[in-house]
């Protein structure tokens, strides 16, 4: 029976000093199936992936390939067993062509160069482009192999990554096992459909392991789901026989809390904090008019080409706009400027945390006081001791772990980093507009709740919130108003306080 199973792990354990990354983990992948691997951050998913792909070697336990014991001492060994991993981070060389990228990764494998695509170091472009075209066709993509990666859209780049993984793992007599590590974390609904088709195609060729912390997607894509918590596998279920609540419970050990709030019906009389009139930026968005009131959560919903991110960035001053007006607390702001926005009580949480909102290498305390506003706006001096104390306050308020003010922010987990960044903005109580771009992206449900609580609290104190949510469900459960955008224009507005809560389908209809 074992002989028909392409890959299985039996009682695998792995520790790093006192820290246990994997504890007696067993799982198997069958042919032509999509296996979901789900768990919170820190549950052990990435360690498991690293064992599967040969980056880590287990301290104990076995890896079986078609019933035979194998050691994956390096990624090449894993590849020879058919394992190809599409990592969460991009692994393409952007200034080279698609064909070159596919070539580079396959050169490492034993059979990679047997048709002499590269002889004495010299490239045979014809063969290289041909092979790339062939593998791209196999996964149903029409990307031109000669195009440079940096000219490709995000979704296309992911297709190339999948092509690479497939190529690496294409061994004779072996079914490819493609591992997708959080593939949807940066894709929008539109691209996710493309990915769905892709996964179905891969399932016909071999097997797929789909790693995610998003319950709804795992349920959509996978045949079978394996749940991890605290470095162990705590359950395995057939998708058809399980529901989201049970998965949540297995993942977190808690009951699912519906983070929705009571609708505040008295918003109509609140002051208008942000008023956009006919805002437009050539090529990005046009004629955007909306109002956000004090205490309101206004969600912008749409696909990744809808222009909603650009609108938020334009309001904050990170990007330009060329027509229309931005009115902030009644006054016209002709050219929003980063400094003035920050000092005027506007906060912006960008979706790219590592690149745009946290300074790695500086401590938690230093990151917390990066914006010098409010009472500190006019002081030239900085008091490290007072800074540390303030940081301790916020650490306990938001349950930031580890609770060390001098810890380098880069050493915190994603969810904790986001909490620090949020605290940076909340620190000054005079916040009147909070712009949140995917605030809960990449952070696990526990941290997500903490973040949501803080956002609600800011609303209670009068802040207006402009939100780009991670999922439609999140938007529906959190927002007072939903504005739908498509191709840079507003297609619909829903006022949830009036009782008419839109369905998922209604929103999607306006988005595409």
């Amino acid at each position, binding site marked *: 029976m074992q002989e028909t199973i392409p890959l299985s792990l039996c009682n695998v354990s792995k520790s790093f000093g006192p820290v246990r990354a994997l504890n007696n983990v067993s799982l198997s992948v069958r042919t032509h199936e999509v296996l979901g691997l789900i768990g919170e951050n820190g549950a052990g998913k990435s360690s498991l992936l690293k064992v599967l792909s040969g980056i880590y070697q287990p301290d104990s336990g076995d890896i079986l390939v078609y019933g035979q014991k194998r050691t994956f001492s390096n990624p090449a060994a894993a590849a020879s067993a058919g394992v190809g991993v599409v990592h969460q981070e991009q692994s393409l060389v952007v200034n080279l062509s698609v064909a070159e990228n596919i070539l580079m990764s396959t050169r490492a494998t034993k059979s990679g160069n047997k048709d002499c695509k590269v002889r004495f170091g010299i*490239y045979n472009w014809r063969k290289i482009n041909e092979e790339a075209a062939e593998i791209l066709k196999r996964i149903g993509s029409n990307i031109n192999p000669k195009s440079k990666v940096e000219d490709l859209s*995000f979704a296309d780049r992911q297709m190339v990554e999948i092509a690479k993984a497939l190529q690496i793992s294409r061994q004779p007599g072996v079914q490819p096992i493609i591992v997708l590590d959080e593939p949807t974390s940066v894709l929008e609904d539109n691209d996710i459909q493309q990915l769905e088709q892709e996964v179905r195609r891969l399932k016909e060729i071999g097997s797929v392991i789909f790693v995610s912390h998003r319950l709804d997607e795992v349920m959509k894509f996978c045949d079978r789901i394996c749940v991890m918590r605290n470095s162990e596998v705590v359950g395995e279920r057939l998708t058809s026989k399980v529901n989201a609540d049970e998965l949540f419970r297995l993942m977190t050990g808690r009951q699912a809390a519906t983070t929705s709030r009571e609708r505040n019906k008295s918003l109509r009389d609140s002051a208008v904090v942000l008023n956009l009139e006919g805002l437009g930026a050539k090529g990005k968005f046009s004629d955007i008019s909306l109002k956000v009131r004090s205490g309101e959560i206004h969600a912008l919903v749409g696909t990744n080409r809808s222009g909603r991110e650009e609108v938020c960035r334009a309001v904050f001053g990170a990007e330009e706009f060329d027509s229309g007006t931005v009115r902030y607390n009644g006054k016209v702001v002709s050219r929003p400027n980063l400094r003035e926005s920050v000092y005027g009580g506007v906060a912006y949480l960008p979706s790219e945390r590592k690149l745009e909102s946290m300074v790695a290498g500086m401590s938690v305390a230093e990151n917390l006081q990066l914006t010098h506003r409010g009472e500190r706006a006019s002081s030239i001096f900085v008091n490290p001791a007072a800074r540390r104390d303030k940081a301790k306050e916020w650490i306990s308020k938001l349950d930031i772990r580890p609770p060390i003010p001098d810890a380098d922010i880069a050493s915190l987990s994603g969810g904790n980093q986001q909490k620090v960044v949020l605290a940076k903005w909340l620190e000054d109580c005079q916040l009147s507009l909070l712009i949140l771009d995917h605030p809960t992206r990449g952070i696990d449900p526990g941290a997500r709740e903490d973040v949501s609580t803080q956002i609600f609290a800011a609303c209670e104190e009068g802040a207006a919130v402009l939100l780009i949510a991670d999922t439609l469900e999140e938007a529906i459960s959190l927002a007072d108003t939903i504005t739908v955008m498509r191709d840079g224009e507003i297609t619909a507005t829903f006022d949830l306080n009036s009782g008419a809560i839109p369905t998922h389908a209604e929103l999607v209809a306006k988005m595409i």
Partner: protein
Amino acid sequence: MLHSDNLISNGHRALVSAGSKPGLKKEWLGPLAALVVVVLILSVLRPSTFLTWENFRAITDQASIPFILAMGASFVILMGCIDLSIEGVMATAALIFVLLSANSVNSVDLGIGAPLIALLAGTLMGLLTGVIHTVFRVPSFMVSLGTWFIGLGIATVLFGDSIPQLSGHLTRTWASASPLGVSNAFVVSVVFVMVAKFVSDNTLMGRFTYAIGADENIASLNAVAVNRHKVYVFALAGFCSALAGVIGSSRLGVGVVDLGSGQLFQTIAAAVIGGTLLSGGRGGVINSICGVLLVVIINNGLILLGVSPVFQRAVSGLVIVVAVVATAFSQRSRLRIVK
């Protein structure tokens, strides 16, 4: 050398929209256009002196050594590193070449062996720079600064008390002889450039250099032996400097320590003006050639125009500034960070 986020390999949406806008199809069109403009201007201003065969000869002679140096420098800069040791390696190679050929100071004459050994020495020095940079993880700026001084030092020790002069007929005249109409030195440099272009576009050496310049981590994830490759490229740069040293001393007829004086500035200026970004991954052979020609022709033009040498440096400097500003002007945006 100093990394900017021009090449954002993560490709996330927000940054793609705020980062570099799609550039020209061919990256060297800008510098080439500038070169054409400069040539036209000089042709109009000084047709009788600029557009002569003698002047063309002079320009090609002037450009020979910079062409060669620019090739080595381009590969290094494409990786995002820098090689400051050019002048030191030139000096060492020059002295070795002269002292091992028929000369006025000793009785050694290794014939063809002399330049070969000099080239080997230069390559080894480049290798040393590369190895120290990769093994000890010291920025190339600092390592090559050290090897620059070491190179000058070796040359000083070899120099001894009196100037070694080449006494062989071939060694003294070969570089300037022009059986093909232009000097042999220029012919060698042009061939070198063509080989370099081929290598950069069609071989592992070239493609991996670009990959490393874009992102070292990603390159290594893609089975590029980054450290080994860097060492090769620095060795190549050492070879180029040595070749320049051999040709230069052959032209001068003597071996002196400050043979390469001023070449570092000129080579880096040429790379910058040509648009090979110092952050790596962008630009290349043609860019650098355009840069060299711009520098050489502008200098030539300044002389023909009778500009006092006092102002030549300012003009060269302003050209560099104008070149980078012009290249970057269309890319300006709110959040663009260039270091």
